[in-house]
């Protein structure tokens, strides 16, 4: 009887950021997240989060926790501010201000995919928002990724199934090619499968580009595969080339040159045809952290304020400086659960202040922990879809504390301590 519904909620369970979720709330629990996939249901869950504020292992009042945090940060010699997932852009903006004020190193999980980001800075990109792929694509190539695993509604909402302006019959208007790169398999629902050994992947992409540019290539097995794929792409009107920009779930590290080769191929296909490279990103507003860092500092991740202004340190980000024991105090804003393994393990070795969802349950036992709500479940604001589109968040519940407010209050404490 007491059920409420929140319509058009945006799910941050993955980077698809589906904004058609109807969240049903009974009392203070989410009982249903209609339209969401399994990943989304797990992300919303029942919406319960811990509501603790702890310092030195004991429960304390929020003001005490903030005061302690400010003292630790003010005394830090080499602080780190880390933007973990599940916070809004508003919280990210406030956290970057603290990094600037402290002269800290600023980083985020994007550090894990530095090679891909750097490739896009060298080359640029040929891309599209996800909705444009829906309108235009007549050939969808899943390059070593089956979106069903980590981006469950990508195919049904964007790339494959829905009807679009130039794909009036949806799935029937498109041809789907799955490229299996070793254990990284392309989409299951494909009209055609091609296998490429991981050690040949970057070569194959270069050969495909050569074919697109009209150059003759050799006759070996890799060249034959490349020629076949490239020819199909050249005959398409609009190619969506889809790859996973996040670290592989198979433990096999991506070749550092893979993204650059994909970008170069996608760019070359524009002219003879149209092509957009769609880079799949995980959820929790990771793309928002890149965007905010870029507009405030000029760089998307691994920004060092130590010199009094932003410097780009893509090869000396959080993971590297923590491993070198250069960081003495870390401020983590966001879900500790979303921090990459290497960074999370190292955080246990330094003094850490954690502000975010389930901060008090962080495995690295923060010195100060302030639990907040999850952006999109308990907090409003803005978050980015994987294609850099900003969407509003519609919280269904209220949380223990609003992350943006806590971070701004911490900034105010730090400013007070200045004089």
């Amino acid at each position, binding site marked *: 009887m007491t059920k409420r519904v929140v319509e058009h909620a945006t799910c941050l369970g993955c980077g698809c950021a589906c904004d058609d979720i109807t969240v049903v709330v009974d009392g203070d629990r989410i009982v249903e997240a209609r339209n969401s996939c399994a990943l989304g249901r797990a992300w919303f869950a029942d919406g319960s989060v811990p509501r603790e504020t702890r310092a030195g292992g004991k429960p304390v009042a929020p003001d005490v926790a903030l005061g302690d945090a400010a003292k630790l940060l003010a005394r830090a010699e080499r602080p780190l501010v880390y933007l973990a997932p599940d916070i809004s*852009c508003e919280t990210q903006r406030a956290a970057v201000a603290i990094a600037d004020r402290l002269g800290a190193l600023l980083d985020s999980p994007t550090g894990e995919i530095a090679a891909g980001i750097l490739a896009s*800075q060298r080359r640029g*990109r040929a891309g599209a928002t996800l909705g444009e792929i829906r309108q235009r694509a007549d050939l969808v190539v899943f390059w070593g990724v089956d979106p069903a695993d980590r981006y469950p509604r990508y195919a049904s909402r964007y790339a494959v199934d829905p009807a679009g302006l130039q794909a009036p019959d949806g799935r029937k208007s498109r041809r789907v090619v799955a490229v299996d790169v070793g254990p990284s398999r392309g989409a299951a629902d494909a009209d055609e499968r091609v296998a490429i050994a991981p050690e040949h992947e970057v070569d194959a992409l270069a050969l495909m580009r050569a074919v697109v540019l009209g150059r003759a290539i050799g006759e070996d097995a890799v060249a034959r595969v490349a020629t076949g794929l490239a020819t199909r792409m050249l005959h398409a009107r609009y190619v969506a080339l889809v790859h996973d920009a996040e670290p592989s779930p198979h433990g096999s590290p991506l070749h550092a040159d893979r993204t650059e080769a994909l970008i170069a191929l996608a760019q070359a296909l524009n*002219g003879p045809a149209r092509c957009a490279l769609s880079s799949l990103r995980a959820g929790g507003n990771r793309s928002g952290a890149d*965007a905010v860092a870029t507009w405030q*500092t*000029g*760089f998307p991740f691994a920004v060092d304020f130590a010199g009094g202004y932003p410097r780009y340190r893509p090869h000396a980000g959080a993971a590297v400086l923590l491993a070198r024991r250069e960081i003495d105090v870390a401020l983590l804003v966001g879900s500790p659960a979303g921090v990459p393994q290497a960074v999370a393990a190292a955080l246990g070795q330094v003094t850490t202040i954690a502000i975010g969802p389930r901060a008090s349950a962080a495995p690295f036992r923060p010195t100060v922990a302030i639990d907040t709500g999850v952006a999109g479940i308990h907090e409003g604001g803005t978050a980015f879809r994987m294609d*850099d589109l900003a969407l509003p968040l519609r919280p269904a519940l209220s949380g223990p504390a609003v992350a943006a407010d806590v971070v701004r209050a911490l900034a105010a404490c730090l400013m007070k301590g200045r004089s």
Partner: protein
Amino acid sequence: MSKTRLRIAGGVVYDPANDGGADGGIRDVCIEDGRIVAELPRDAPKLDARGMVVMAGGVDIHSHIAGSSVNQGRRLLPEEHAADPAPAPPLADPDAIPRSGTGGTIPTTFTTGYRYAALGYTTAMEAAVAPLAARQAHAELDDTPIIDAGLFTLLGNDDYLLRQIAAGEAARARDYAAWVLSAAGGYAIKIVNPGGVERWKAGGRNVTGLDDAVGSGAVTPRRILETLADAANALELPHPVHIHCNNLGQAGNATTTLETMRALAGRRAHFTHLQFHSYGGERGKSWKSAAKEVIEHVNAHPEVSVDVGQVMFGPATTLTADAPVEYLLHASSGRRWVNVDVELETGCGIVPYSYKEQAAVASLQWAVGLELFLLAKDPWRVVLSTDHPNGGSFLSYPELIRLLMDRSHRDECLKRVNQKLVAGSALADGLAREYTLSEIATVTRAAPARLLGLKHKGHLGVGADADVTVYANDADRAKMFSTPRHVIKGGVLVVEEGQLRRAPTGRRLRVQPGYDRAVTRDLKRWFDGYACVSFENYPAAELGE
């Protein structure tokens, strides 16, 4: 420093909106509660401006400073940012967090606000925002201090509009334009390469002229321009349609530009970065200046206004919704390139670039812009811009002002540039005109404010916003205009003795034209059929009543 009262005393005041373009007279400018007032008590705080030049704060009618395409450009330029660090300014306000940043052709948001203010500019219009991306642009402007800013909303390649045009539904197109402006929190309608971006997205080709079919034969660039110009005028928007014509950057494109102006004859319309649209010659064969023909048409048609989009030698970043143009620039230059097709609405293309004196086409572009300025009869309708960062950074405005005010300097510069395509142009034949300080005040603040319909900006009359810039009078006009002594924004002294000292939050400028609510029912159906964002989540701003 109190926000409430200030007397700027004894300066030479250039206020062309109120003094009829007279040479500056010495008078006090009085400020109370953020506005210009007629008089203040004798004991009000005083700013000694004796011997200095006093103007309203600068108003940039066309600049790219915030939003998804600007930020894509920022991400593409780590080396520029590394080369131009911007430490946090020493602000006097104890509560404000002064922010560091980086510069280059696309500075970070805080640095953009600080640098505009330090240049004496207090208002800027972000000239191209896809409605779908407006939420990000507003967030970036929230992080851009001091300046008041508005967004121009991109229309003219959006599928919903093209469908209304195909169906002959002009009234619904107008209602839709009004709804989109409200939803995007926009200030004006911006048209970029009407129909051409849609053709690029649909099949990789551009349009070539005003009567090319865009999908349906009933939809042409001409119909798009007419529909939106009429909509803007019927909605009584403060600024008319802001038009980036077809064929930007192509030899021979002056024909298209003039045809566009004739197509809209009698309608108010603003033609932006006209320099990029004033070339003679023939595509793929020859280039020459057509500035004279184009500006003579502008001179003779009072309903037309333009900003120049001057090219300045040095680094630039070309950044536009005109994606097919950037594809060509990438293909011909081999430079880094970003293309982003924006669902159902528009495109985005970015290529970092550099204009070199040794290059023939860059030299021609430089000359064409100066010809437009120097042959313009009415400074109220031909205003200053570099289409930042496309023709050059806004930081190059002082050098541009010097080129306009100082003929001997200009002639020296002209000697250095590549003469191949400049020979025979009006500029090479000798243009003696030198802009006066009053004309500079017109093209950098009074006229842009008037063209934007910003009644409280660009002048120093009673009731105007207290946005005031005080310059030390220097014969080197580049030096004078690059380092104002004092800048007041909304009554707050933001630049004091040449130092940025305060960074108040700027205001957002937006319109909320009325529309028939019936359009939203049809739009909802359209969203349900094609969009990838919920209709309810689309508006970035309050829709109002």
